[in-house]
């Protein structure tokens, strides 16, 4: 029996869930971003205190010193929910794979000057350990953070950072003609080379930071905000004189990702800083603390890659970052 359903009068009795209508101040349709995110995390009547942190609730806003009236104010301008996140990344990663195939087909890695090739192995390949540290930090922010508005994009970022570590890993294998030798050598540099130790120490310091919003500043704003422009802009630009077009192609994913990631980072910080003078002061103090540590940590690497031009490149990255932070309402 087929029935023309159009002849039935089927009117929705409500447009969205009650908790969302209350936020809207009216019952109107909500987006999938809103329905999948708003108020999804439990807030009340937790049954047991965590064994691993008995002085806090399971979800507890006091895991950071930042205070928000409404944690769901920290929106993601990309409006990612799981589906749109994965679809966006699958597209970016397919484009990156296309570049990998193109570079391999044309033998473009063979165009690298021998000297610069060694530099690339020195600066680029150990960066996968920095990305791995960033993955742990993003996971930590998801774990300890408060409110799905910020914790959901945090686990997406964890996936991104792992994906980036693996893009670098793939570059390392291609540079070694398909084997793991270059990556193993890179790990040795990460562990022992002088020009990496400042950064490794910096990353290890972030791994023990318990205030998740401070970690957000340290990782997403400062470390990513200095290392990405330094490596994927300044180092990359120098490489162009040494036949490094292939490296630009293979790291395009990171450049594209960084500008997208920064949109989210900036939106979250801007709202938190605008919330109160106390927040702004805390965020500013964390910013300057991690900026100074990071600035010093990257100088030996920049000098190793760019020689005398290293300090100028770091200064430029710092100036860009300071300007960015100022726009977010932080004092620098």
């Amino acid at each position, binding site marked *: 029996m087929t029935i023309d359903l159009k002849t039935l009068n089927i009117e929705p*009795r409500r447009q969205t*869930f009650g908790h969302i209508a209350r936020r809207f101040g009216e019952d109107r349709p909500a987006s999938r971003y809103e329905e999948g995110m708003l108020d999804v995390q439990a807030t009340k009547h937790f049954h*047991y205190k965590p064994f691993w942190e008995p002085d806090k609730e399971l979800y507890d806003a006091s895991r950071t010193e930042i205070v928000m009236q409404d944690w769901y104010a920290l929106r993601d301008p990309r409006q990612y929910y799981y589906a749109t996140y*994965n679809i966006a*990344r699958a597209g970016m990663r397919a484009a990156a*794979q296309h570049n990998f195939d193109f570079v391999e087909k044309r033998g473009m890695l063979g165009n690298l000057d021998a000297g610069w090739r060694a530099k690339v192995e020195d600066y680029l390949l150990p960066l996968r350990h920095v990305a791995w540290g960033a993955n742990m930090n993003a996971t930590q922010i998801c774990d300890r953070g408060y409110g799905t508005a910020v914790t959901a994009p945090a686990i997406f970022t964890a996936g991104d950072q792992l994906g980036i*570590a693996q893009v670098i890993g793939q570059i390392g294998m291609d540079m*070694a003609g398909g084997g793991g030798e270059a990556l193993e050598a890179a790990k040795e540099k990460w562990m022992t080379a002088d020009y990496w130790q400042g950064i490794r120490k910096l990353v*290890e310091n972030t791994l*023990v930071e318990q205030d998740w919003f401070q970690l957000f500043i340290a990782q997403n704003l400062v470390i990513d905000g200095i290392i990405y422009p330094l490596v994927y802009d300044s180092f990359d630009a120098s490489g162009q004189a040494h036949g490094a077009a292939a490296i630009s192609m293979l790291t395009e994913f990171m450049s594209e990702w960084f500008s997208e990631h920064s949109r989210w980072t900036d939106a979250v910080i801007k709202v938190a800083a605008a919330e109160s003078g106390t927040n702004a002061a805390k965020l500013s103090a964390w910013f300057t603390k991690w900026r100074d540590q990071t600035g010093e940590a990257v100088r030996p690497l920049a000098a190793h890659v760019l020689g005398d031009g290293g300090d100028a490149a770091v200064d430029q990255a710092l100036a860009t970052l300071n300007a960015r932070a100022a726009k977010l309402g932080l004092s620098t």
Partner: protein
Amino acid sequence: MAKKLGLKQRYGLLTRGLDWETSYQPMDKVFPEATFEGIKIKDWDKWQDPFRLTMDAYWKFQSEKERKLYAVLDSFAQNNGQLSISDVRYLNAVKLFITGVSPLEYQAHRGFAHAGRQLPGVGPRIAAQMQSLDELRHAQTQIHTISHYNKFFDGMHEFPHMHDRVWYLSVPKSFFDDARTAGPFEFMIAIGFAFEYVLTNLLFVPFMSGAAYNGDMATVTFGFSAQSDESRHMTLGIEVIKFLLEQHPDNLPIVQKWVDKWFWRGYKVLGLVAMMMDYMLPKKVMSWKEAWEIYFEQAGGALFEDLARYGLKPPKYHEQATADAEHLSHQNWSIFYNYTQAAAFHTWLPEDDEMAWLSEKYPNTFDKYYRPRFEQWRQMEKDGNRFYNNALPQLCQTCQIPMAYTEPGDPTTICFRESEYKGDKYHFCSDGCKDIFDNEPEKFSQSWLPVHQIFQGNCGGADLGDVLKWYNMNVGADNMDQNVSPEQALWDKWQAERSRVAAE
């Protein structure tokens, strides 16, 4: 030129190689939860990656699945797919799911993020992170699927608010709070092994095949789409338990205790599924007893035979759960029939053909113990005196279900157990729940028991109306008997309209 690597080596380089032994900060500060549960790991490198999924492959597979799923959800909404369900009563299963299960998917997401940060081995850490992403997927796709039903039907509109407050929802909530507040290894055994591996088929198969039998194409599509995630989760769960048992003999007694505890915890939560299968589905898939036989007795039996080589025994009280399968759904449905005035879904008495089905599926118990009860309530209903129980029930301190279960082997006597801790008395529905309390009294004495909280005035006020208001319940629509519900009236109107149109 170096030789190209095999898949396993390649995966190893892209993941295992990432980790390093920290030296500027001590490892036990980087992984502060690695040892406090007493689990001993000699060599994380012995971890076998159960699936070798790099992020590029993850994004590709998952995005393809999401495209397909959301295409179905869009067309379901456009075509008023809610009209194709078997009967409006079916939606009560959906209400139970969005208020009771979807918030657990979210909890799993955050819990695996915790494990995905805290487990010191890089292999399990990555697997846990991917599961964290998957579980967020499950929470969000379920919300997006049920969003359409919420536009037309009651009892779904306040799912997070209710999950944090409503009396019976504290059963699933406290279950997951328990796992989440445990250390990362217990969490992996509780959720990764006991829940995802041993018991998952008793949760998802009933809900998803229930959806299929009852014309809910949206939920079916979600269920199918989640299947490949679930198989990864199951592989992770079994790998974790084997790894812990292989790493050190001292782990066995700890793991055994967790298996015993989480079997019983999970089994008690699944009582909600039992009543859903036997009473709420207009078109029945199979009985709870049959599901228990297939998915626990047979599949679980084979599993524990396999794990016996590590010295692990089947969970304590599993024989009792098997014996209880004759009673569980009937006792639970009775509880909810009694207290529908305080629930965000409807109940009703089984019709004659449903009673016949129950007699056939439960030949040892239904006619003897439960049919007379339902017939008495049916008579009361006919007399215009539908039975509602106005006395608040006592809840089990551990599982938080009203104390309405009977003694093992004696289905006419209610089972009560009690323990004393720091001068206070605590009450339990079963030996299993009492054991769990006695092993961790400090933890379980903290339970936020809804009935206690009502008595203490923490739930909006002293009378039922105040409490329901505090639940954000739409009184008269979300609660009470199915037969007097607005959505039944709406459904009947739609059906009448369809018949009229068909006749023309």
